[in-house]
């Protein structure tokens, strides 16, 4: 017997959000308790179930057997409903499920484990120092996003991937233009094609001349199923897409948030606090916002709501991370607190690069505040371009000024 389920018309989704500027869209506070699983329409033209409470978010993200990643996490925001269900590109682990995902993930896990990432510390310290020196040689105000927040993580990824010294500025330019919203779409697309071409060449050169880097190790490593060029390229592009602008936005938005919370900024130079401090900033700011998308592959129930196979669910991390059933005073920034926040996601797809992101932020933020004495933003808040409409939240341009650069 087939039954037709009558569904109420979808509510209007809170996209683009209206963050204020560090808090989630205020509508979530009510939605989270009154409609924890709410049917909404989306800019991409299909309806999704919005999951906004902490426990429900963990349930969905932790159950990869019911909730598939086949459709990109952002399809409801940037995508087009005609692209749904397309097979995942090779190497892009975020879109693979089950064994296909874990094969890629476990292959990469050791490269991103805490101990391995810790070896990058001297390199990152040096990079941060050089970029602050360069800021000091210029006259303020200047854009922190462009002059510091974008280049530092781009150069860290190029070190990991083994981009040769002489090609790093080409790499940096292509990747910066890709995310620069002040450029017309055409130019951004051209930059994306440029970085795809860049990676194709890089992979070919690693195949011919392997070095001591991630791509070479993936090529050389003896395994029963070696990664081919297409997989390596998908992986390299994913690492860049997932690791570059996220970290850059955390640096820019994190700096602004700390300037607005001087009591917290005062704790930045205390290494013991910074062991948890970065995670608290990631929770408080939850830059991967507007929902990460999953597709139910079987019927299930979340918070009493039936979800049918084939329907999509968008898990709103920024709402879950303020849920007072999970955290008290969640609207306060307190660098000394420890929490099981969802800012890096949860479940088998939880951020692969999280230890790298933590290390970069643990170095960059305290150094910016220590070395740029009198660091400030002179733009009134209403004129700061926040990325409410974007997949990853942040600030498009943050003009900073300072009094003196300390060595």
């Amino acid at each position: 017997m087939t039954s037709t389920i009558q569904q109420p018309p979808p509510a209007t989704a809170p996209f683009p959000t209206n963050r204020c500027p560090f808090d989630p869209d205020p509508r979530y506070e009510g939605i989270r308790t009154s409609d924890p699983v709410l049917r909404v329409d989306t800019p991409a033209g299909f309806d999704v179930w919005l999951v906004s409470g902490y426990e429900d978010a963990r349930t969905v993200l932790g159950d990869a057997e019911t909730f598939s990643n086949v459709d990109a996490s952002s399809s409801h925001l940037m995508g087009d409903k005609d692209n749904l269900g397309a097979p995942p590109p090779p190497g892009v682990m975020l879109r693979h499920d089950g064994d296909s995902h874990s094969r890629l993930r476990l292959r990469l896990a050791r490269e991103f484990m805490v101990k391995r990432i810790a070896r990058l510390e001297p390199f990152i310290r040096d990079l941060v120092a050089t970029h602050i020196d360069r800021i000091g040689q210029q006259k303020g105000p200047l854009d922190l996003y462009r002059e510091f927040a974008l280049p530092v993580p781009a150069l860290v990824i190029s070190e990991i991937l083994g981009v040769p010294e002489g090609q790093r500025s080409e790499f940096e330019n292509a990747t910066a233009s890709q995310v620069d919203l002040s450029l017309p779409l055409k130019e951004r697309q051209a930059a994306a094609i440029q970085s795809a071409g860049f990676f194709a060449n890089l992979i070919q050169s690693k195949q011919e001349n392997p070095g001591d880097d991630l791509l070479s190790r993936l090529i050389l490593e003896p395994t029963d199923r070696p990664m081919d060029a297409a997989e390596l390229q998908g992986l390299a592009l994913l690492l860049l897409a997932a690791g570059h602008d996220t970290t850059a936005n955390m640096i820019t938005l994190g700096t602004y948030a700390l300037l607005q919370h001087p009591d917290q900024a005062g704790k930045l130079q205390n290494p013991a606090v910074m062991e948890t401090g970065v995670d608290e900033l990631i929770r408080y700011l939850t830059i991967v916002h507007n929902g990460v998308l999953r597709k139910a592959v079987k019927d299930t129930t979340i918070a009493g709501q039936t979800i049918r196979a084939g329907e999509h669910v968008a898990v709103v991390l920024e709402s879950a991370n303020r849920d007072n059933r999970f955290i008290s005073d969640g609207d306060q920034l307190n660098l000394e607190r420890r929490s099981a926040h969802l800012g890096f996601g949860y479940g088998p797809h939880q951020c692969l690069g999280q230890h790298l992101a933590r290390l970069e932020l643990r170095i960059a933020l305290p150094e910016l505040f220590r070395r740029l004495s009198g660091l400030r933003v002179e733009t009134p808040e209403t004129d700061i371009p926040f990325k409410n409409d974007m997949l990853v939240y942040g600030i498009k341009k943050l003009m900073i000024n300072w009094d003196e650069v300390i060595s």
Partner: protein
Amino acid sequence: MNFDINVSKCVGAGVCAIAAPEIFDQNEDDGIVVVLNAHPPAEQESKLRDAAVRCPAAVITLSQQ
């Protein structure tokens, strides 16, 4: 406080290793969890709990005694 661990479901995220470094580490070869101390002392209980709730694959389960 003791715990069980289902290593076959570990995704090598290493959250346990930062939450409770005295108890968990990761294997250099594949990033999979390595238990350093299967019977952590009572004063490490809060770290063990933290690791269990933060493990993204929910493979660490606490048991009494």
